[in-house]
């Protein structure tokens, strides 16, 4: 008996009990659709997180002060030390000692209460140097960024993020306007292009000033302290080399010889990316596993129905055996039937899953758009057919092993 012949028989058998076949298929359909959809949501989340992290710059290194240790040995929080200085930044910008570093910028942050006219807005203040747009991967939407001269002179100039502009200027042009940051007047000289507000934090809600001006006028009481240094490596591949150079330069400057005693820590976006990818990968796996359970339930449904079918058709099996069907012919007939059920259910499930995935963003806007990859579709279809094979094997084998005289006598 050929496969084609078996398929013909299977369709014939399945159409004899249409409702039952459709309900059985539905079990697999729901399972496969759930797998496709949930894995798609997981993948969507992974990609969203990756994009978010990459928008910070995949060649970005962050240098933090190490934990401070009180005299009693009590660990303070991460980054609580104040060991980084502006001179460290300058040293890192020396191409002789750190050739893989394109630029290093300091970061001094605080909250900023900004007012313009009768509008006010609370935002994040970032005090830094002229290399900020390049290192932090920001474009300018209008105006200009401040220069090295502005930093040296501690000029009271500010560059705003789009969110701040939206909240203070309501459509007006902010360039050249004077705003007050923590009651000190600053002139707006540029607006950063939006990076897109995504998930964790809004990267467009910030106001950037020369670090010197921030120290002098805005972050009073904290001294000339650099909370963080951002280092731009020449490429994502140069991250390792740049990390080594930064480590060496800072250890030399801080007179530390043992790397385990370093008073700073370097975190690359690559590290952040890989750990985030890992956790979203676990999420995807979990979602897939939960959906997989419904697929197994669907498989049990197939087995159940196939057992009923075999019992119902005992006499037919007897007839087929009497006219010359071998065990494998009967086995094949029922296996093809169960695999056809699961295969068609799976194919329809893929269709439903893809359609639901396309509709999902408009139904639930808080979820990242699901991403359906062709390997997951192929795998889902393969698994559904395999489920038909696995759960069909026992009933089919039962049919194949019926003795012809007993099967013929069955009423």
């Amino acid at each position, binding site marked *: 008996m050929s496969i084609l012949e078996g398929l013909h028989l299977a369709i014939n058998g399945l159409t004899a009990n249409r409702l039952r076949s459709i309900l059985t298929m539905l079990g697999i359909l729901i399972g496969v659709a759930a797998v496709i959809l949930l894995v798609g949501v997981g993948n969507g989340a992974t990609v969203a997180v990756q994009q978010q992290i990459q928008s910070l710059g995949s060649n970005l290194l962050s240098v933090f002060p190490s934990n401070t240790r009180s005299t009693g040995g009590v660990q303070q929080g991460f980054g609580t030390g104040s060991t980084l200085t502006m001179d460290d930044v300058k040293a890192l910008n020396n191409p002789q000692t750190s050739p893989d570093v394109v630029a290093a910028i300091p970061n001094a942050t605080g909250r900023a209460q900004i007012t313009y006219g009768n509008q006010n807005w609370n935002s994040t203040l970032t005090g830094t140097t002229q290399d900020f747009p390049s290192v932090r991967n920001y474009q300018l939407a209008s105006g200009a960024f401040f220069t090295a001269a502005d930093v040296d002179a501690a000029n009271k100039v500010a560059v705003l993020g789009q969110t701040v502009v939206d909240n203070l200027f309501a459509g007006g042009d902010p360039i050249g306007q004077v705003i007050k940051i923590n009651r000190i007047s600053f002139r707006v000289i540029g607006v950063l292009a939006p990076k897109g507000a995504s998930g964790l934090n809004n990267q467009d809600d910030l106001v950037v000033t020369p670090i010197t001006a921030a120290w002098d006028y805005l972050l009073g009481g904290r001294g000339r302290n650099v909370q963080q240094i951002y280092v731009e490596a020449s490429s994502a591949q140069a991250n390792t080399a740049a990390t080594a150079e930064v480590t060496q330069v800072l250890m030399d400057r801080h007179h530390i010889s043992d790397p385990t005693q370093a008073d700073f820590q370097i975190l690359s976006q690559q590290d952040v990316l890989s750990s985030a990818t890992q956790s979203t990968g676990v999420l995807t796996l979990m979602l897939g596993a939960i959906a997989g359970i419904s697929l197994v339930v669907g498989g049990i449904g197939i087995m159940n129905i196939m057992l009923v079918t075999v019992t119902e058709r005992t006499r037919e099996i007897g*007839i087929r055996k009497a006219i010359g069907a071998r065990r494998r012919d009967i086995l094949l007939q029922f296996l093809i039937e169960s695999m056809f059920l699961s295969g068609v259910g799976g194919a329809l499930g893929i269709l439903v899953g893809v359609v639901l995935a396309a509709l999902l963003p408009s139904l639930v806007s808080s979820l990242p758009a699901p991403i359906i990859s062709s390997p997951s579709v192929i795998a889902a279809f393969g698994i559904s057919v395999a489920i038909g094979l696995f759960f069909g094997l026992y009933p089919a084998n039962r049919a194949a092993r019926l003795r012809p005289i007993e099967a013929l006598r069955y009423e």
Partner: protein
Amino acid sequence: MITLEGITKVYRAGEFEVAALRGISLHIPEGQFVAIMGPSGSGKSTLMNVIGCLDQPTRGRYILDGYDVSNLSEDQLAWIRNRKIGFVFQSFNLIPRVRALHNVEMPLIYAGDNRQRRERAMAALTSVGLQSRASHLPNELSGGQQQRVAVARALVTDPAILLADEPTGNLDSESSLEIMKLLRDLNQQGRTIVLITHEPDIAAFAQRVVRLRDGVVLSDEIHPVALNEMVP
């Protein structure tokens, strides 16, 4: 064509052993039309299962068309049933939901014999006069027509013997007569036929009647040809 030597069949029912056949020896030459008769419990169904290779004898030898089939595996028996035996059952045993022509084709499908399959099935259906019913489902046919489809199915592989188990048991007398005339015609074309029945007037179509009782051959007589020709 068929040689049975000392066929014994013992069934176990719990602790008891029931001997359905106790040493049956029988030779059926090619082209013969044999009726096997006997009351229920005489072992004729068991004998039919053995001859039809649906069951294997406990002891004894069975040669069918030159093949010793007493000790074959299940799949080998399936092959013998497919190639050497054409079955006609009391309850027709057509496969439901499958059209008449496809039912007739079925043995060829299992034979893996695809040469002009459809044409050969159609020819078999034509030989029983049902070419116009080829695309009907079994439940759209009368009992007599269903049985003729079953005969066509039995013939399609050109088997060595036609084994008919109470072929008229579920038919009215008119259809019964039709089926028996069909079998007689086939026999006259040279087909070996083994007929199992308990009705004397059905057995009368055969040339030879073997009577069984309690698992042994009670009588074995050749009928006068005259009886065979009483029916026009």
